[in-house]
Structure formats: structure tokens, C-alpha cells
């Protein structure tokens, strides 16, 4: 079987396997209680794993991946920067304003309520966090051909 065809088969299998592993780990992490040793250890293991993978896979001197000129909007990141600014600003307002936390919810207090409500919802949040960690590692890996497929070019 040609290499390209073999890689084409391996990629979905590897992706499915990683989703199963992440889902299992998320269920395990969601079953722990915050402020307990198991919660600290499982969260720390995930953080150490992502930092280790990033250290191994990321180049010491990366080439910034930009969007190809032909596809680039005038201000490609502006919408997301404005959104992040809005979130930070409102989070600060909620955090600093006087009054009860229930009247002025922060992202953390909403997440705590979300986690307390149901272990299943907490598992979804854990999975999303773990998945984002793997996405960050993949994004920083200089797979130029994969990025180029999506219209990215080195700056």
C-alpha cells in the first residue's frame, strides 16, 4: 500500500483512538472532587503531558503561520480580539463590582455551578479542556503541508 494511502487510513484511526482516550480521562477527572489530591494529580498529569508534548514537538525557533494573502481578510483576527477583550472586560466588571457573586457571576462561578449540577456536564467541560490542549500542541507543530492545505503560509 502506498505511504499516502496508509497515512490516510492511519489518521482517522489515530484520531478515533485519541478521542476515546481523552473521553475516558475526562470521565475520570470529572469524577474527582475539586480541592482533593486525585483532582490535583489528574489535572497536573494532563498539564505535564501537554507541556511535554509541546516541548518535544514544537520547534525551538518556529515560523509564524499566517493566512495566505489571497484568502486573508483585511483584519483577520480583529473579530476574535474584540471578543476576547469583551470577555476580559466583563469578567473584570463582574469580579470588581460590589455585591454577591450570584448577582454578579464570573466565568469561574458559572463553571462551578455548571460542574456541581451534573458530573456529565463536568465531563464535557473536562473533555473540551483536554481536547483544546491537544489542539494547541497540534497547532504549534510545524506541519507545514497540513497547514498549507488550510491556506496558511510561513510569515
Amino acid at each position: 500500500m502506498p505511504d499516502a494511502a496508509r497515512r490516510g487510513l492511519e489518521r482517522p484511526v489515530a484520531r478515533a483512538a485519541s478521542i476515546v482516550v481523552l473521553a475516558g480521562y475526562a470521565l475520570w477527572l470529572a469524577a474527582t472532587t475539586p480541592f482533593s489530591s486525585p483532582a490535583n494529580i489528574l489535572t497536573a498529569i494532563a498539564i505535564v503531558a501537554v507541556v511535554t508534548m509541546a516541548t518535544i514537538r514544537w520547534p525551538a525557533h518556529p515560523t509564524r503561520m499566517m493566512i495566505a494573502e489571497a484568502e486573508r481578510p483585511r483584519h483577520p483576527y480583529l473579530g476574535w480580539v474584540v471578543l476576547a477583550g469583551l470577555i476580559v472586560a466583563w469578567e473584570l466588571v463582574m469580579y470588581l463590582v460590589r455585591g454577591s457573586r450570584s448577582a454578579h457571576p464570573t466565568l469561574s462561578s458559572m463553571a462551578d455551578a455548571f460542574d456541581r449540577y451534573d458530573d456529565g456536564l463536568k465531563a464535557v467541560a473536562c473533555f473540551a479542556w483536554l481536547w483544546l490542549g491537544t489542539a494547541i500542541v497540534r497547532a504549534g507543530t510545524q506541519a507545514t503541508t497540513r497547514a498549507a492545505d488550510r491556506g496558511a503560509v510561513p510569515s
Partner: protein
Amino acid sequence: MSSSPSYAVWALIGACAVALWIASRTVAGRRVVVRPAAVLRRLATDPWLRVPLVLGWAWVGWHLFAR
């Protein structure tokens, strides 16, 4: 004091995030905003921004699930 205005603003911000995400996946919207994956790739391949990106991700997990 009622919490409704606070939640309403959070809901509005959430709706903006969803709208941006949907826009980034349409042909017309892509002329205005890039997909989240492109933002992540830009941050993760920047020699300076990739450090706060990983630290921020780690902090969020620690803050939400451990502490």
C-alpha cells in the same frame, strides 16, 4: 439586586462567539473573520505568544478542575 442583567450580557457575549464561529465557516464570513483554528495556529507558532497560550490553558484547567 437581580442577576438577570449580568447573565444577559454573558449570553450576548456567548451569542457573539457563536456568530463569529458560524461566520468564520461561511464563504462570505471568511472575508471578515478567520476560523478559530487559524487563530490558534497563529498563537501557537509565535515564539512569544505560544508561552502564555499554554500557561493560560494550564491555568484554566487547574482553576476549574483542581485548585
